[in-house]
């Protein structure tokens, strides 16, 4: 992996995903934190990384420098062949993301990841409004990540 400067778990996940050359080639930079930028509108295949529901740990003296965060990764495609991008075929970006993160432990930037556990793997297909075959497809992967934090 290229040297990462990640200092949050969301950035660490993004860098970890991009360290997989197959994903990096497939998304070509279209990996966003939290939401899709309003302008310029990104292309039809993209990935969104959203961290939420951070669970802290405490000891009697204060907060532990560790927490468990639920990170949702949404893999989107809106083109007719989108399932090849989000689906569970070996070469898809969705599947490569699952393989890269599921069970991962290590250090990314300044974030130490104890473990990354897949909590939920869900598919969504929304029919196109224009009657075409360009369904909007999403694969949503929720990972429970136990990691270091800076207090």
């Amino acid at each position, binding site marked *: 992996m290229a040297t990462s400067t990640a200092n949050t778990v969301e950035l660490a996940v993004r860098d970890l995903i991009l360290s997989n050359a197959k994903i990096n080639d497939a998304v070509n930079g279209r990996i966003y934190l939290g939401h899709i930028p309003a302008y310029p509108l990104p292309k039809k295949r993209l990935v969104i990384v959203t961290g939420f529901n951070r669970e802290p*740990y*405490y*000891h*009697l*003296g204060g907060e*532990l420098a*560790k927490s*468990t965060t639920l990170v949702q990764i949404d893999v989107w495609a809106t083109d007719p062949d989108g399932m090849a991008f989000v689906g569970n075929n070996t070469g898809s970006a969705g599947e490569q993301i699952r393989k890269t993160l599921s069970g991962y432990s290590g250090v990314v930037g300044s974030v130490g990841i*104890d*473990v990354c*556990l897949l909590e939920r793997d869900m598919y969504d297909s929304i029919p196109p409004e224009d009657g075409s075959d360009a369904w909007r497809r999403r694969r949503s992967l929720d990972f*429970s990540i*136990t990691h270091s934090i800076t207090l």
Partner: protein
Amino acid sequence: MATSGHGATISFGTSGFTSQFTSIGSGSSAREAVETTHLGTERDTANNNVSYKTFQPSDLIDNGEKELEFYYDPAAGTRMITKAVETITMTYPIKPGETSGGAEVFEGFATNYTRPTMVSADLMTATCTIKVSGIITYSAGS
């Protein structure tokens, strides 16, 4: 006023054992009830002349054990189970308006050390039981 246990500490005078404790069980002190019933123990004439056993407190008090739970750090080298009797100080949380919490000072040693259970999704914790030997000296918070 009731307060939470957050802020309680425990320190070990000789071994220097330290950790991120998540729970300190203060334990309990106990003494036997010594029976003092004798042949002349009064009868209850209003209730069929039964007698009631009498007791007095034993003058031997067992100050029990302290149960400690803490996050396990594999890098920490102190194995409490091997340590000798030492002076241990446990402090209660500082209540609003206080500058120091109440404290218990006693001699003690580890009688049990439970290694962590390793589970993917959980942080590792370990437990240690400290036997109190002798008196516990109490001091109030101020």
